[in-house]
Every structure is written in C-alpha cells, then in structure tokens.
C-alpha cells in the first residue's frame, strides 16, 4: 500500500477527470475541461512515479511516447481526425493488455477477482487494439483494407471464437495460478475476433465502431485498475466507457439503425437499389456564373455540408462565400445533420475551424422547420444526409433516417464531383429534382469559383 497521501492524490486526480468532463458540456469551458483532464493525467503520472524508482527506462519511454504523440497530433490534418482517434484508441487498448500481462508475470498468484480482471483486460484490450487498427486501415483507405476479406460462414466462426475465448477465461480463472500461456492464448484469440468483427463492417460505419471501441478501451483501463487496485483507472475507465456508449447510441439513433445492425452489417442488403441511370435521367448541371446570378436576389441562404466538405477542406471557402453574401444582405445559416461527415459533430469542428459564428449553426430539426422559406440551399459534398429516399422508400437501407429536407427550398445547388453515391451506396433522387442544380467539381474549387463570380457580379 502506498502512503495514504499518494492515495488521496489519486482520488483528487479521479475527481479532476470528472470535473474535466463536466466542463466539456459547454463550448466556452471545453478547453478548460480538456486541460483539467490533462492535468489529472499528469497528476496521476507524478504520483505513480513518486511511488517507485528506477526512472531511466521509464523516462525514455515517456519521452518517446510524448514525442510521437505530439508529432501525430500536430501534423495531422483535421480530415484525418477519425483515423487518428482510432489509432490512439488502439494503442490505449494495447497498453492495457501489456500492463495486465506484465503484472501477471510479476505475480502469477492472483486472487480470483484479479484473475477475472486480468482476463477481461486481455479480451477487451485485444479486441480494441485490433479492431481499432482495422478501423484505422479502412478510414485511411489503405489498400489492404479496401475490401473486407471473405471468411466462410463468418457469423459461426465469430461465435465459436467467442465461445473459445470465454472457455479460456474460465480456465484461466479456475487454474488460479495465473497461467501466462493461457493469457497469451486469450489475447491471441481475442485479437483474431477483433479483426474479424471489424473487417466485415463497412468503412462508413467506422465512426460507430470507433466510439464503441473507445468505450471498450475505457473498460479495459478500468479492468486494469482492478488488477492493480487503482482508483484513478477505475474511475476514468468508467467515464470513458460511459462516454463511448452514449456516443455510439446517439449515432445509431441518428441513423435510425440498431447497434446490432451496424455491427453485424446488413448494410447494402436491404431492398433492391434503384437503378442510378433511371433516377438520374433528368439531372441538370450548372456553372459557377449561373449560381452567382441565382444568388443575386437571395434573401435566405442555407449551407448543408457533408463529408465532401471535409475531403475538399472547403470550409474556409464556404465561410468566405457566406461572408460576401451576408454583406449583400442575405441571411446565412448552416444546417448540420448529426451524422454528416464521418464523426459525430464532424461538421461543427470544421466550421468552427473556419470561424463560422455559433448562432448560424442550426441543428437538423431546427433548420427543417424553416427550409421552405429559403431561397438557395447549398449542399456541399453531402449526399446521404439529404437523400429523400430515407423518407419515401421503406425498403431503402437508409429508411427512417431523419434527413435535412433541402428539397423544400426554392433552389437547391448540389456541389460534388460526380453522380457517384455517398457512403450508403444508393442513388439520390434529390439530384434530379426540378428545383435542383448540380455543380460538379471539387467542393473547394467550386465554391471559390462561385465566390469570384459573385464578386464580379457586383
């Protein structure tokens, strides 16, 4: 037992995590909240360091890790955020496995509850690590992960694997001497399971997977906490577990799909997909100059961004266009769909980066109520989140997903590079609607062209 003071300091660290998260509930205090959490982590670190000696090895490890972390965090593009989170998440899971394993090596004579916690850490950690790596690969669009490799009768294999892991865990606990080999087997089996599970899930469902794996990595940390009897790990692990679960459930709700549906993917199996050529017969395309003319008399303009805006990094261009239009007396708003982009709140982060005023951001339900009084609705690289099929075709794969009903606006201008589908892989009748004009091209380039045209028009 460490000195009581150290213990109390651990408590304080745990409380700081709680208060840090609490400050995350408001944009104004969120930076402080994140800082508080970081301070809590530093405090816990210092305590752990004080409680032991032999610093050399550790210091090197800390420095190496910190350097890599700083490098990744500062050089990454904002669009690559999802993969980065997946990667970090996986590393956390791996660390948990290693810690539990090392503890087991140092003292194989553990009590039952410690053995349970160790086994749990192994399973959850391994699933987290490998699942996150696969998710990373898919989001980064690495070649190897482009197409899920085929596993014959996958569901059964998964089931058998899970049963095997459970049995091994039971054995591990019953053996009661902390048999290292069994632990290794558990970790290996769970690794395979992690890869298989995530392998079969479509690339665009990765955000849900990441949130879930994030929750898991929290639980792994908490389990480690039970192994080494440490309150900070238990508390912060629980917090992360809760946070991941909530985000997962929110995303599923926004897509109107159940978690099972996401995880055991029936995506793309629902109903027959309408023929794209059929749907797109009447598509009309337009040019930047025409758009500028249409904008001339517009009183209310709404931008609906999607994943394409993130890809094209078009947020600054959009913001500049909006500014110019505002100067000409137009009222500007942004309609944000909860699952636009590839992470919850993805669009908010991008638009925040471009300094869009907070009041102009409207949530889906709010903007939908007033869309019929809008003159021009811009759809910037969004597709599924504005696809009316979700409401009209009950057999569609996105059936029931709430959408932003841009079709209600007087004119809809859709900016994307082609008629290729979005993540759900289905055609979008909006593009062929009477009041829709397509402006093909990279979102950033297209918006800049419109901007120039508008400026010339004056």
């Amino acid at each position, binding site marked *: 037992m*460490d000195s009581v003071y150290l213990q109390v300091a651990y408590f304080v660290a745990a409380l700081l995590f709680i208060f840090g998260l609490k400050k995350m509930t408001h944009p104004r205090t969120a930076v402080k*909240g994140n800082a508080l959490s970081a301070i809590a982590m530093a405090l816990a670190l210092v305590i752990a360091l004080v409680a032991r000696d*032999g610093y050399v090895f*550790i210091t090197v490890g800390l420095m190496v890790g910190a350097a890599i972390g700083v490098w*990744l965090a*500062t050089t990454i593009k904002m669009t690559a955020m999802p993969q980065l989170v997946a990667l*970090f998440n996986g590393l956390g899971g791996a660390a948990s496995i290693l*810690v539990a394993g090392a503890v087991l090596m140092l003292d194989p004579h553990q009590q039952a509850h410690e053995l349970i916690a160790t086994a749990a850490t192994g399973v959850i950690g391994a699933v987290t690590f490998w699942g996150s790596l696969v998710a990373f690969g898919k989001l980064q669009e690495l070649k190897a992960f482009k197409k899920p490799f085929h596993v014959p009768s996958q569901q059964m294999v998964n089931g058998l694997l899970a049963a095997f892991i459970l049995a091994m865990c039971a054995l591990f606990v019953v053996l009661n001497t902390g048999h290292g080999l069994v632990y290794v087997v558990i970790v290996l089996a769970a690794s395979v399971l992690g890869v298989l599970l995530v392998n079969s899930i479509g690339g665009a469902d990765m955000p849900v997977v990441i949130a879930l794996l994030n929750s898991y990595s929290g639980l792994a*940390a908490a389990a480690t906490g*039970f192994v080494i009897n440490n309150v900070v790990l238990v508390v912060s692990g629980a917090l992360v577990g809760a946070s991941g679960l909530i985000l997962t459930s929110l995303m599923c709700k926004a897509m109107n799909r159940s978690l099972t549906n996401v995880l055991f993917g029936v995506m793309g199996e629902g109903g027959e997909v309408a023929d794209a050529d059929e749907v797109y017969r009447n598509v009309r395309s337009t040019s930047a100059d025409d758009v500028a003319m249409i904008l001339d008399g517009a009183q209310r303009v709404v931008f609906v961004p999607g994943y394409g805006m993130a890809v094209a990094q078009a947020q600054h261009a959009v913001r500049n266009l909006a500014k110019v239009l505002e100067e000409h007396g137009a009222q500007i708003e942004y309609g944000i769909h909860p699952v636009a982009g590839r992470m919850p709140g993805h669009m908010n982060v991008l638009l925040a980066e471009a300094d869009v005023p907070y009041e102009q951001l409207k949530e889906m339900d709010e903007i939908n109520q007033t869309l019929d009084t809008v003159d021009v609705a811009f759809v910037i690289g969004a597709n599924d989140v504005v696809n009316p099929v979700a409401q009209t075709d009950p057999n569609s794969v996105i059936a029931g997903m709430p959408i932003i009903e841009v079709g209600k606006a007087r004119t809809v201008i859709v900016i994307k590079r082609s008629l290729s589908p979005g993540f759900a892989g289905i055609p979008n009748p909006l593009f062929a609607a009477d009041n829709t004009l397509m402006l093909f091209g990279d979102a950033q380039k297209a918006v800049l062209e419109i901007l120039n045209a508008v400026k010339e028009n004056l």
Partner: protein
Amino acid sequence: MQRVLKWSCATAVLLAFTAAGLAWAEDGVKPAQPEPTTVKSLQKQLLEENAPAPPKTESVETASAATASATAEDIEAGGLSPSVIALLLFIFVLAIFIGFEIITKVPPTLHTPLMSGSNAISGITIVGALLVAGDGQGVSAFIGFLAVVLATINAVGGFLVTHRMLAMFQKR
C-alpha cells in the same frame, strides 16, 4: 439512452455480484491452500505495527526501500481484502452513473472533441504501465516499457489533438 443506462447499470451490478461472490468463495473455499503472499504481507504488517519507531537514518532507508518495493508489494500481496475490491466495484458503478449524467449534457457540437478527449483519458493505463515498467526483470520490464510508450502516445496525442479542435471553438 434510458435503456442503455439501465442495461449497463444492470451489467455493472451483476459484475459486482459475480466478482464479490467469487472473492468471497475464494476466502471461504480455499483456506487449505497455502497462500504465501497473503500471510507474508500480514506478517509484515504485524511487524511494522509492533515495531518501535526506527531511528532517523534507518527510517530513511526503510522509506526508500518501501518506495522501491511498493510495486512489488502491491502486486505480490495480491492482498485486497474483499472489502476494498467491493468498494472499488461500487466506485466503478458510481463513476459510470456520473459519466452518463454528465455526458448526456454535452451538446452535439462538441461530440467530436468529446470522443477524442475521452479517448485520451483512456490513456490512463499509463499509470499502470509506470508501475510495472522497468522493474528489473528483463521481459516484464520491456513489456512495461512498451506499454508506457503506447499509453503515452494515446494520452499526449489525444489531449493535444482535442485541444487543437477545442481551440477553434473558443475563438468564436
């Protein structure tokens, strides 16, 4: 949400019961087995409590020895009384509850930073890694070192990237 909450709480309670039950069963069932570590630690405790306060110099030595062996003892002792593990489980449940209460209040705008921020928090395993890293014995020390590196990347990178995102929000 409500359902998720209920479900996860039920699980937690179940977990608590199981673990507590096992801990109890272990106490009750396997007394015949030799438990060298527990006995050792108890003896140590007895010793410490009955020993007169050591003179200054000795005390310093003891203290440093204690810090050095803190980890080993922690692990070796394995010596949670069922009560401490039970309290930890209870704290776990309370923390999950608090997590749900707080996080349902985070506005959608902040969901991405929340995700990356809580991901950073899960790097807390670093504390565990610190306790096992570099304990001398080759393999486990190396494993610990690796754990330190990975967890540090997770924590440092996570907090930084979250800060980058949040800083954008604050400008406005």
